[in-house]
């Protein structure tokens, strides 16, 4: 891009935040609260709640589409921003560009990491240890839960800490009660789920009205989303500015190797812009942040900013998961309940495989249970035999009886699982796109077998009619949307780009606060931990600014 086309801002911002999802929203909220001015670059625009299709029935959806109406387009079309992936080992990358990012439509599962997670690498020796422990993050989990509102239980165990700040847990569906009881009968504990849904009014926000349509965006904002819960309050401080449709390409550096700004392209006009700032926080989600860091090449940083360790892009770890379904005999042919609840499951199966006999694999798995009960889209009907009147009766009989188990297992960090930009084609702005190379190892394959054993044994204990499945099948890699590890924290600057405060070892005024900063993936959903880490990191940053060190 030639210089005459570049639009430069004269202002030097105190902090530039790249991204507006959970981590970017938290960074902006916490810094502005502490009197620091923030410029946020958002790759999209605000999604208007008044335009959400939260209460549009399936048949009404069809009618609206026929009239040319469209719901908010949350998900980024990969034709607009492609990435490369191995056809033999495809990685599914799901992105939301726009205010709040994926928190507009996220699963809301809000699990605290425990020391079982933080101490995993130190205990088993696989890859570098986390530089923090539960005690470092616990105060931030407390604060995040109080701020955003998380419902759940106070049942504390070594693999899943409880919390005295949880809002009331929602009542269980019939199928959930049956699975909980069946699991207990074989020694597996299923607890109340922890979900960032307001089961009662909280901090001036209304309680959930149990329509179950959270995946279409909540029309009353009764579950945490970064836009309403963090960014709007940050605006009220008068210290936040947001540039919409700013697709960030690179971090810019000065002669000393410190970041001094950001290059971005306007998503609408395609014009190149440069803004200047004293500090940069990367919060564009794991893969996009990594791509930006690797593309930020200069004479000081020939393989990407802050990458003297050559670890940025490596150690991508997501999770493995699959889905098993069955029908509860005692629910077949019974009254159909409105099973919507808070959308998704009301229970959670915490990791337990660290107890008992020693496994022949490392790390662990948990399980979720969404789609249990009577819900639209009974595609399982295709698995039932026959056709005609008896088939129709068979579907109706099973409609209230569906139970679902979705185990999630940790994937070990591996140097070969990586994001690269060298030699990839350019995007529409002339910036190299990401290539994602990712596959699972024998460790995960062994774990998957026990995950299948677990799901099957719970259904057997429930004497349930299991829908036929292919043992060993896993969902498309990446589909959990829990990407981690490509810009990890660690004590050793030769093996990690970030220190324990998400600050680059090499470039003191660059912080990376999204999922890429995780040292391991765990089996848990990461958003609550992302929020806690981003809060902690920006507390540290604010302190360093006030002390004159940054």
């Amino acid at each position, binding site marked *: 891009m030639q210089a005459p086309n570049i639009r430069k801002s004269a202002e030097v911002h105190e902090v530039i935040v790249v991204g507006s999802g959970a981590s970017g929203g938290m960074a902006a909220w916490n810094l502005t609260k502490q009197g620091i001015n923030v410029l946020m670059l958002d790759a999209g625009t605000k999604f208007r709640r008044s335009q959400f299709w939260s209460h549009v029935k399936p*048949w009404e959806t069809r009618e609206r589409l026929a009239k040319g109406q469209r719901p908010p387009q949350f998900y980024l079309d990969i034709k607009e921003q492609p990435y490369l992936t191995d056809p033999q080992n495809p990685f599914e990358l799901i992105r939301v560009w726009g205010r709040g990012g994926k928190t507009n*439509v996220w699963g809301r599962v809000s699990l605290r990491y425990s020391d079982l997670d933080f101490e995993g690498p130190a205990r088993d020796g696989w890859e570098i240890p986390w530089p923090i422990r539960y005690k470092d993050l616990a105060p931030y989990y407390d604060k995040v839960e109080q701020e955003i509102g998380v419902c759940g239980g106070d049942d504390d165990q070594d693999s899943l800490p409880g919390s005295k700040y949880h809002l009331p847990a929602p009542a269980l569906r019939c199928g959930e009660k049956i699975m909980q009881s069946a699991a207990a009968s074989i020694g597996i504990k299923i607890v109340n789920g922890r979900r960032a849904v307001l089961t009662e009014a909280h901090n001036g926000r209304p309680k959930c009205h149990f329509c179950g349509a959270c995946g*279409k965006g909540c029309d009353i904002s009764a579950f945490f989303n970064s836009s309403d819960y963090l960014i709007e309050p940050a605006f009220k401080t008068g210290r936040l500015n947001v540039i919409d449709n700013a697709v960030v390409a690179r971090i810019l550096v000065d002669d000393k190797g410190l970041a001094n700004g950001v290059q971005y392209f306007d998503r609408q006009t395609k014009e190149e812009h440069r803004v200047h700032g004293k500090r940069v926080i990367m919060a564009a989600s794991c893969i996009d942040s990594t791509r930006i860091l690797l593309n930020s090449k200069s004479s000081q940083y020939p393989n990407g900013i802050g990458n003297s360790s050559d670890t940025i892009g490596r150690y991508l770890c997501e999770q493995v998961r699959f889905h098993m379904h069955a029908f509860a005999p005692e629910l077949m042919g019974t009254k*159909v309940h409105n099973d*919507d609840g808070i959308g998704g499951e009301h229970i959670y199966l915490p990791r337990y495989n660290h107890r008992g006999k020693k496994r022949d694999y490392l790390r662990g798995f948990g399980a979720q249970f969404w789609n249990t009960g*009577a*819900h639209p*889209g009974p*595609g399982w*009907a295709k698995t039932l035999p026959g056709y005609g009147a008896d088939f129709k009766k068979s579907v109706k009989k099973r409609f209230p009886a569906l139970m679902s188990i979705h185990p999630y297992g940790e994937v070990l960090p591996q140097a070969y699982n990586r994001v690269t930009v060298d030699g990839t084609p350019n995007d529409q702005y002339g910036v190299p796109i990401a290539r994602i190379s990712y596959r699972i190892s024998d460790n995960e394959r062994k774990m998957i077998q026990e995950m299948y054993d677990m799901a099957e044994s719970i259904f057997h204990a429930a004497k349930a009619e299991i829908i036929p499945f292919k043992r060993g099948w896993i969902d498309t890699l990446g589909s959990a949307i829990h990407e981690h590890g490509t810009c990890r924290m660690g004590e050793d600057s030769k093996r990690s780009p970030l220190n324990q405060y998400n600050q680059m070892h090499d470039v003191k005024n660059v912080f990376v606060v999204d999922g890429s900063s995780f040292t391991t993936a765990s089996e848990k959903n990461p958003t609550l931990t992302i929020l806690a880490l981003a809060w902690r990191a920006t507390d540290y940053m604010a302190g360093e600014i006030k002390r004159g060190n940054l």
Partner: protein
Amino acid sequence: MKRREALIAISAVVPAVSIAAESKTFTDRERAQTARLVDLIIPHTETPGASDAKVHILIEDRASKDTKFAENWKSLLKKLPDTEAVEKAYQAKATEFTLLKDTTIDFYYSTREGLATELGWHGNTYLPEFRGCEE
């Protein structure tokens, strides 16, 4: 998130098509045959059947927008001219039977007749409280 619910293989897809009042994709004969076939999968009983829910119209509309689907459906119509052919295709686990059954399920159970009237789903509404499992 519900997006995940949408991704799982077990879920049916809500087909993103409109109801074409004046579609010219099928001949009158093809349209009538499609209605008969979908009713073989889900017939009218004490509740609406597939053609009551206009599944045959929805299928035609999809065919009008999806050339590959239209081609496959017309091939299906040739292979399944009558109930005897349908039964043979079912026994043989033929692809045309799978297409007929799966397409009928996807459309029927996303209509008001299939989802609300037949199955009794009454969700996606405002509730003051969620009571969970109760008799």
